[in-house]
């Protein structure tokens, strides 16, 4: 029996009057990679942002339904959203490092969580940069501006920064869409390594990528979850005509 990390029940989301997500129900497995695929505007990124309540930052968004992480409803009124986001890290489509040094970018999260001990912070930096497989490339330039790194390095640094607050779940919103093939391969390798310890949810436009990195795949279309199954099943033997059309490249 596989461990279930996130349970979503009857989730509906509205931007003003417009419904962006319709009755989404699915379970996300612990320490697996779950990919969300679908054409632009299908709601997959919006749904990703449901999982750490980033949609709360947008005016006019109304969310109905329940999302349980380890049995706790994250849309409960008494929930500490700040604490939720510590446990559910996020990597964005475009690298959004702060215009600070590499070191300061990594320790930003730990510092706002009250860690002040310099030695401990140093340890966190080395550990997370190693986890993100970028330590060897940056260990001699930790005090340089993070924005001087290449695009691929910046994105891996973003992943390291997310790891520094020790989340259990990592959400990735098209993390490689702006990168060249070599950097993309590195990110995918990294995702593969990270799933030993973390539950990873990734939104991607790139179907080959979803096929390569994920264990489970969810296909979204017009705000609805059309099909959700093992990745191999979705790509080789989909149960739904729309899914088949999409994964074979007939539309999208």
């Amino acid at each position: 029996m596989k461990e279930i990390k996130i349970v979503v029940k009857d989730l509906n989301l509205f931007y003003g009057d417009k419904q962006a997500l319709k009755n989404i129900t699915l379970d996300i497995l612990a320490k697996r990679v779950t990919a969300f695929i679908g054409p632009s505007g299908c709601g997959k990124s919006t749904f990703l942002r449901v999982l750490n309540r980033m949609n709360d930052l947008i005016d006019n968004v109304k969310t109905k339904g329940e999302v349980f992480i380890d049995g706790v409803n994250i849309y409960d009124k008494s929930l500490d959203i700040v604490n939720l986001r510590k446990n559910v890290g996020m990597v964005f489509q475009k690298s959004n490092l702060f215009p600070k040094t590499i070191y300061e970018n990594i320790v930003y999260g730990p510092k706002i969580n009250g860690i002040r001990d310099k030695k401990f912070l140093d340890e966190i930096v080395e550990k997370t940069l190693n986890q993100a497989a970028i330590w060897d490339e940056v260990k001699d330039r930790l005090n340089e501006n993070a924005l001087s790194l290449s695009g691929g390095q910046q994105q891996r640094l973003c992943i390291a920064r997310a790891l520094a607050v020790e989340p259990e779940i990592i959400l990735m919103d098209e993390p490689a869409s702006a990168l060249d093939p070599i950097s993309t391969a590195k990110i995918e390798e990294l995702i593969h390594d990270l799933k030993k310890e973390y539950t990873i949810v990734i939104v991607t436009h790139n179907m080959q990528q979803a096929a390569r990195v994920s264990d489970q795949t969810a296909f979204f279309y017009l705000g609805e979850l059309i099909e959700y199954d093992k990745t191999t099943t979705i790509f080789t033997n989909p149960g739904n005509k729309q899914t088949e059309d999409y994964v074979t490249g007939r539309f999208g």
Partner: protein
Amino acid sequence: MELKKRKKDFSGAIFLGIVRLMFFFLVFVLILLLGKIFIEGIGVISLEFLIDSPKNNMTEGGIGPAIFGTIAVTLLMVIFTVPLGVFSAIYLNEYAKDTFFTRIIRTSINNLAGVPSIVFGLFGLGFFILFIGKNLDEILQTGLLFGQPALLWASATLAVLVLPIVIVSTLEALNSVPKSHRDASYGLGATKWQTTKNVVLPQARPGILTGTILAISRGAGETAPILFLGAAFFLPNLPIADLCIGGYCIPMINPTEQFMYLAYHIFIMATQSSNPTKTLPLQYGSTLVLIVLTFLLNITAIIFRYRFRKILGRL
């Protein structure tokens, strides 16, 4: 294929001619103005001129008290206006929701920048001196201390005058911080205040500084609003009082005194002089000092803005 020869673009040439003419005319006027002030003014500038008080009905001596007064007033003005302006802008940009009410406030701030400065002067007289000052005197039983024109009220009035500059430039600076950086911070579990303090404000700082400096150079050059607010015709004594704490005395700006002010001093010399031929060179000298002062402030602002853009350009 038949390729055509280029036709002459007459209307374009005429337009270019007009634009060019206007441009050179403007440069010419500017050079004439600044050149005249520089040539006539540089002769009288000396260390004594910058330090001494005016003498002999302003036909001799220097502008020391006027420079001191200008610096004292603008300093106090900055102390009043920067916290007020920056915090209002932070509230408007980061916390307040976009409602009808906040839109009215934003528009009002922009309109405030267009109000003639003499109106601010009258406002200062009515509100600060006659209302706040008089009532303070009554409450504190200080006789006639606050309820009269003084440095304090001139600074406060100039602070209100330049407030829109500070607010608007701070709003712009806050707005230019990318949303993605805020998202990154929230995504790491930061609160709103932590995000504002650690991510937004450090990046907005150069823009806020630029606004502050522009506000100073605007305030330092104003004459009309301080006419009724304590700018003195002639006052050789500096508005200074000793502040004593436990036996130690430090000379401090005394905000209840009247003061001399460079811009007002130039106005007085130009309009009230008993001997215009002898006052004229001093007038040029004072004007040069004021222009150099504001010019230096503006240069500083430009340098800040340049560095700010360079940082943003890399993102």
